[in-house]
């Protein structure tokens, strides 16, 4: 599997930012023909290490060698030229250009300085054929889905005759089929002798494809392991560095009793709600104190359902009843008026206002509901904010610092606080635990359980089936933008059962229609 000489070594790398030691004496090596997973919690130093490798950052100390020769890249361009290519989590291509151009821009085939368009298209077609991707290379990239764009990014990376391919969370926006396709490509590239550095948050993917694993924690190297010799549990232990106590305790919690849910008039009762080209008409009821889990693969329509129920997108089909009386949820304002709150999956773009303070972010929804003419008195603001900063243990606990300075988990808690002070009857949480560290994750899971015990209804959207199973009274399963099943979360239901629903596309207990 591994050759005798690593293609890439990084030795004693240190990198500091003001107030933060991002990397402290970290070693890393990469052999030709291996897939090497770089693992770590948020803030472990993964992205800093990658940026040092690709020349985005300089190092304070340490040596990088490529093929035994010491290198120091002044930027991604130099790194690429030396054979180190990177594909980032967010597709970093230009959607206004054609597919072919996106693959070749910056190194277009030219004759006498003129771009040879024909040659470029021909080579783009050949390259995409290697990835089994049959798309029109003349079309604008923006007309294709994110997954296709990701593949185009990889096509670009491998065309550069890369010897080292860095894949920085490339799977976070792909569904299972697309991940499988990506892995096929990765294996093929590995067999061609390319060294692949793979960053992901999905443990299953690591065990599905990685040959070796390097774990970072708090900017320090924990160790390098062969995947086969590192059980999942020890990997997680090494990543979070605290004997899994939190996780286990949560695991000990009994599954929610489904009988606690569904009784009386539903709080929210939607019939055949749908929106063309977003989600097919579905029906769903949510009762007071009930947690409804929304499971499904990425792109299955989970987020679309959540957005329709909040009025973030407008439904063009179906009817809505809140507490038995007919109404419509055409705008967020209307939904909020019915006591619904919504935390978007896209925290930074649709959640927080980074330059405003924690306090201002927390009171935003309540203030918006009151209207700008009735400002929330400052003393009341401080009371509310202090209470929730303490209750959710938001850190740092200074409510006047810009929320942009907080970590992802704490930003998520600020968003939760924003809705909790509006005392909603239904809280829609779209992937509230994505991309945050395990500590904050379990806190948020526990909070959801508590809120539901206190009578609040919660619609919980998550990509992680275990999480959905642990928290929900009822689970709605999405597939291909359709709600294919609703399962009462009793003893018969487990992850496999949900997977079956997703795969089969038919409800085992029937879809009310």
């Amino acid at each position, binding site marked *: 599997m591994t050759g005798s000489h690593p293609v890439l070594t990084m030795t004693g790398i240190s990198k500091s930012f003001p107030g933060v030691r991002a990397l402290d004496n970290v070693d890393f090596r990469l052999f030709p023909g291996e897939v090497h997973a770089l693992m770590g919690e948020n803030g472990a130093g993964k992205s800093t290490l990658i940026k040092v490798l690709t020349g985005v950052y300089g190092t304070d100390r340490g040596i990088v060698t490529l093929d035994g020769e010491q290198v120091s890249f002044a930027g991604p361009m130099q790194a690429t030229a030396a054979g180190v290519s990177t594909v980032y989590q967010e597709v970093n291509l230009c959607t206004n250009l054609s597919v072919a151009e996106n693959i070749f821009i910056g190194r277009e085939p030219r004759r006498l300085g003129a771009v040879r368009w024909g040659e470029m298209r021909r080579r783009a077609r050949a390259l995409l054929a290697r990835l089994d991707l049959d798309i029109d290379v003349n*079309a604008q990239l923006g007309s294709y889905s994110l997954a296709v764009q990701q593949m185009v990014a990889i096509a670009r990376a491998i065309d550069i005759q890369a010897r080292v391919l860095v894949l920085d969370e490339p799977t976070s926006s792909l569904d299972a089929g697309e991940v499988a396709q990506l892995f096929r490509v990765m294996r093929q590239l590995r067999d061609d002798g390319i060294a692949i550095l793979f960053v992901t948050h999905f443990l299953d993917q690591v065990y599905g494809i990685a040959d070796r694993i390097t774990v970072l924690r708090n900017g320090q190297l924990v160790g390098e392991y062969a995947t086969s010799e590192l059980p999942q549990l020890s990997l997680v232990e090494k990543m979070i560095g605290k004997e899994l106590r939190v996780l286990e305790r949560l695991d000990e919690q009994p599954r929610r009793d489904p009988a606690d849910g569904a009784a009386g008039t539903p709080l929210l009762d939607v019939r055949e709600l749908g929106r063309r080209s977003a989600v097919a008409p579905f029906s769903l009821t949510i009762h007071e104190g009930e947690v409804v889990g929304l499971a499904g693969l990425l792109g299955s329509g989970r987020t679309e359902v959540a957005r329709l129920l909040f009025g973030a997108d407008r439904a063009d089909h179906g009817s809505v009843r809140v507490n038995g009386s007919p109404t419509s949820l055409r705008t967020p304002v209307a939904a909020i008026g019915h006591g619904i709150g919504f935390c978007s999956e896209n925290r930074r773009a649709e959640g927080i206002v980074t330059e405003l303070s924690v306090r201002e972010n927390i009171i935003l929804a309540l203030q918006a509901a009151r209207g700008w003419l009735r400002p929330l008195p400052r003393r009341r603001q401080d009371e509310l904010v202090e209470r929730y900063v303490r209750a959710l243990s938001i850190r740092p606990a200074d409510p006047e610092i810009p929320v942009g300075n907080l970590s992802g988990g704490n930003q998520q808690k600020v968003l939760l606080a924003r809705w909790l002070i509006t005392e909603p009857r239904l809280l829609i949480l779209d992937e509230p635990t994505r991309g945050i560290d395990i500590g904050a994750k379990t806190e948020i899971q526990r909070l959801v359980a508590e809120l539901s015990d206190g009578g609040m209804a919660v619609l919980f959207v998550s990509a992680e089936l275990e999480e959905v199973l642990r928290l929900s009274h009822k689970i709605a399963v999405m597939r291909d933008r359709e709600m294919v099943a609703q399962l009462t979360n009793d003893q018969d239901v487990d992850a496999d059962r949900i997977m079956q629903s997703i795969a089969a596309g038919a409800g085992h207990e029937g879809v009310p229609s």
Partner: protein
Amino acid sequence: MTTLSLMATRTWSRLPRRHVPVLATLLLLLVLYGVGVSQYRAFSNIQVIFNVFIDNGFLLVVAVGMTFVILTGGIDLSVGSVVAMTAMVSAFLLREGLPAALVLVIALLIGPTLGFLMGCVIHFFDIQPFIVTLAGMFFARGMCTFISGSSIPISDGFWTRMSQQRIGNPSGNFVSISVIIAFAVVAVAAYTLAYTRLGRNVYAIGGNPQSGLLMGLPVGRTRIAVYTISGLCAAIGGILLSFYTLSGAPLIAVGMELDVIAAVVIGGTVLTGGSGYVFGTVLGVLVLGVIQTLITFDGSLNSWWTKIVIGGLLFAFILLQRLIGIRYK
């Protein structure tokens, strides 16, 4: 199978929507011309079209430079002042008795130098193009009056020759040398945008500058280059204007940047960057020119109607861009 599902996610039709604005401009131009021909007999004379080019050659050159800047998502407010400054400097140096060739070289260097400096400030210090080119506009306009508070006539032989030279056919229709120069600039610009790395980088940066950086494109160099190009085009425009008026005046071309931006937008270039063509800009300039000609032909309409009509057209085209959903950001 996977391939099939990926294919299905394609959401847009194959007809490139980004061509719609240019086609609409072309249609508008034909309609305007048709109106002119049906209303005024003299309008059908081919010389009317030639005159539009003669009167707007300098505008066209400046608009071509602006197209580069707007394609990267920037804006250059300094062009009108740079045009005036170039004409002013030329007139002043000629009056001082410098040889025409040397004056040309100096005049053609000032614009790009200012553009280069503005590009550097925009790129290295990360200040909005709007503000930086506004300062450039103040600077260039201030330089004009610094050189002279009043208009300086040009009597140089080369200038007068360039001004009066007519290139035409036996039937009496002609264009000026300025028009030839303007078309040369258009051709070079169109080639640059379509077939050189610089041109493709301009589109890429207009589409997504962060991506451009991560793809290893020379974002800074490109950005500085477009402001330099715009400065060069403004300088050429200034020379053409001085051919046209045979003078340098401190207050000429005030507010020209607005006409230029209007022409580029009416020509279908999206102000957020990343989409547009030099050909569209040519059409945009023609639309403005034909409107002016129509208003002149009418006689009863006053000059301010030009502004109102341009404003109306801007509105119509911006609405069109919005309706067909050209938005990349």
